[in-house]
């Protein structure tokens, strides 16, 4: 179950695959002083949590969405996010095992990033940096500066 966090930059990640949730949390470990990864297991939980953050005027620095999730898929969550003004400006990345051109086009249409899930450790190493590249310049600088 998701819990509110206010002290660090929040990276919000929704995925129904427990292994992938763990993998991304591990990938952000080296940024753990600056970033808190908050997770949801489906699209409905994701949207509900994002709306509750919005009501508290808390803004994640990045939203990562798996596409194939039960209840509400990542495409629908992205569509809904873009209809809620304070959430609409948050960078979103669709993170998926699919490499479908249709999904890439969908991401482009909604101004979201598109990253295919890695297949081995060499690809995994660069994934976190690819995620952070989608954050605003200020957040990027902040996260990386504190790491050094």
């Amino acid at each position, binding site marked *: 179950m998701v819990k509110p966090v206010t002290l660090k930059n929040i990276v919000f990640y929704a995925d129904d695959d427990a292994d992938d949730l763990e993998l991304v949390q591990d990938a952000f470990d080296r940024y753990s002083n600056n970033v808190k990864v908050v997770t949801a297991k489906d699209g409905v939980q994701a949207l509900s949590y994002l709306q509750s953050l919005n009501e508290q005027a808390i803004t994640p620095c990045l939203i990562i969405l798996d596409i194939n999730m039960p209840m509400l898929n990542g495409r629908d969550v992205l569509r809904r996010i873009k209809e809620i003004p304070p959430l609409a400006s948050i960078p979103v990345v669709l993170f998926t095992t699919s*490499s479908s051109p249709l999904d890439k086009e969908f991401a482009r249409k909604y101004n979201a990033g598109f990253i295919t899930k890695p297949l*081995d450790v060499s690809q995994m190493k660069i994934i976190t940096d690819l995620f952070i590249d989608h954050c605003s310049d200020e957040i990027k600088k902040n996260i990386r500066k504190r790491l050094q």
Partner: protein
Amino acid sequence: MSALCREVGIMRMSEFELLCRKEQLAILQRKGIYVGKRKTTKFIKLLFQLDSFYIEISYVSYRLSIHKMRYCDSASILDPYLDQIDVEYLVA
């Protein structure tokens, strides 16, 4: 990335088998269509379709350490994944 990876043409299983693993994974990540995931007692397996054949990756450590990759051009490899196949996607 090799010139082969940049090619977007149809690839045969016999051609794919000749590539090194790094090239295989690069092509798979770029062009592979995810079919499903399953767990056995020792491994986590992902199945992809690439053009007219299938590749099943067995992981010792999920997405990190590959035990082996199995190639197959028979649809029988789909059997353990049938309950996960996204019919909506196939129809689209």
